[in-house]
């Protein structure tokens, strides 16, 4: 007889959601988190998109420590001198909230407390080393040579899934699976943020940028999110391209982003209050390992669940939804035929029927488009030349737009036929 019905490894959004759901179903669940306080090792941009958390906490929008709701969404291309932005803001976002900025240390502490309140045993400051096996069946987890036994284990250990890798149930991560995320939290008065981003109380801005000014083939995206009285700003850097470059420091890229002429004024007089970094899951469907086995399931970032199409960067909603699906699978298995590889295969079925795996399949291969010189160098430069061509009044007779576009394409070395083809591919995949 096992000590627990379920052990959940990792107290982030996936793990805490799973623990809440299991405890709500009267199962004996242990949640193990290596950080103490929980959340103090977790990093995210971060915007929590969607309403997945309502599955375990219907009133989360009223009770969770949220910074601001996304009222205004930006996406922009940055060249050395210019920025070409689209900014979408809508009163629809005030009626139905689609995203909230969060600071994970605070937010995850809240989630862990909720897991505890709902009846889970929450242990923090304890590091799980490996899964414990009997034959091919997982019988619990190993910690410092001790085995804690459980009928089932959910691995929700985040973007660096050491337990899964060291237990031999998922391959080590490769360049194409991850990006390097580097972030700073910059303090600014609430009113200053409201003024600079044209926001009212509780309204927030979330912006994603293509850092088209980086040299030497380095590719990175930037993000800028408003918290109540700080700004979360960061860069998500392609491991593959940074390796090919091999002369740019990951920690310098964020400084270049901060000092861009269209970003610097937004941060003026701000004080950097924290620097942080974490790997970001970026590989899409190709990076997803086998999600279940005899006695275990993998959820959240550890399973590679994230979504990025250049306009938006999501992970926490996938984490929460997958954590809940894993918990439900255990609840049903326990009520039915018991825990087995067969009964836990329902986890994948549940994910296939939800946005989690549907999105992964729908946007299969999108990384080939979002990471590439077309988006990161050519498009920003062409757009800049077109806009300058349209707007710079130099006293010369005006040209037709098609002439300006033609010249911009020519100087970027991009053939219009190639642009059409690549543009079509991008359009199809997005």
């Amino acid at each position, binding site marked *: 007889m096992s000590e627990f019905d379920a052990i959940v490894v990792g107290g982030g959004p996936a793990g805490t959601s799973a623990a809440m759901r299991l405890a709500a179903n009267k199962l004996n669940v242990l949640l193990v988190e290596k950080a103490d306080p929980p959340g103090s090792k977790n990093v995210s941009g971060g915007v929590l998109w969607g309403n997945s958390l309502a599955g375990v906490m219907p009133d989360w929008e009223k009770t969770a420590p949220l910074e601001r709701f996304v009222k205004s969404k930006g996406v922009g291309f940055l060249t050395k001198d210019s920025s070409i932005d689209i900014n979408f803001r809508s009163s629809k976002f005030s009626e139905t909230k689609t995203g909230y900025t969060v600071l994970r240390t605070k937010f995850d502490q809240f989630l862990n407390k909720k897991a505890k309140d709902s009846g889970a045993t929450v242990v923090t400051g304890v590091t799980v080393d490996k899964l414990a096996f009997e034959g091919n069946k997982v019988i619990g987890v190993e910690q410092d040579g001790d085995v804690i036994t459980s009928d089932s284990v959910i691995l929700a250990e985040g973007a660096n899934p050491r337990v899964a890798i060291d237990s031999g149930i998922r391959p080590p991560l490769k360049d194409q699976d991850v990006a*390097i995320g580097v972030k700073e939290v910059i303090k600014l008065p609430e009113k200053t943020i409201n003024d600079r981003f044209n926001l009212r109380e509780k309204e927030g801005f979330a912006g994603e940028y293509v850092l088209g000014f980086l040299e030497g083939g380095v590719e990175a995206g930037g993000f800028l999110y408003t918290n109540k009285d700080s700004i979360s700003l960061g860069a998500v850097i392609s491991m593959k391209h940074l390796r090919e470059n091999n002369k740019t420091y990951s*920690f310098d890229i964020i400084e270049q982003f901060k000092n861009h002429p269209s970003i610097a004024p937004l941060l003026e007089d701000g004080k950097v209050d924290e620097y942080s970094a974490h790997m970001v899951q970026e590989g899409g469907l190709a990076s997803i390992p086998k999600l279940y086995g005899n006695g275990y399931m993998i959820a959240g970032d550890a399973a590679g669940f994230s979504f990025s199409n250049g306009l938006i960067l999501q992970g926490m909603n996938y984490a929460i939804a997958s954590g809940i699906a894993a918990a439900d699978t255990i609840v049903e298995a326990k009520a039915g035929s018991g825990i087995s590889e067969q009964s836990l295969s329902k986890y994948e079925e549940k994910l296939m029927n939800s946005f989690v795996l549907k999105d992964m399949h729908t946007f299969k291969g999108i990384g080939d488009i979002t990471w590439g010189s077309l988006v990161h160098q050519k498009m920003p430069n062409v757009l800049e030349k077109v806009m300058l061509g349209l707007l710079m009044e130099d006293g010369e007779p005006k040209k037709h737009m098609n002439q300006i576009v033609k010249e911009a394409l020519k100087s970027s070395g991009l053939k219009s036929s190639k642009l059409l083809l690549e543009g079509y591919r991008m359009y199809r995949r997005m």
Partner: protein
Amino acid sequence: MSNMKIEDRLSLLNYKIDKSYAHITVKPDICEICPDHFCTFACPAKCYTLIDAKLNFKYEDCVECGTCIVACSHGSVSWTNSKGAHGVKYKYG
């Protein structure tokens, strides 16, 4: 905003340093003949530096991001999770 040196940014962080356990180790014989030392560019916490063309690694500044285990393609880096709530402690995350 003026450029902030990485050392100054790291000095903003709180750590509970584990003096008895290095959660990451490197194999000096591999690093010595490494042709790229990509770790020195990839690591966001500047834990990997070249001193007189020799790789120097210090785990104390590590923010446990996991980058180096992927960045090192030569099998030098061994990565384990920090233990006993040691390591970086973010206040915002």
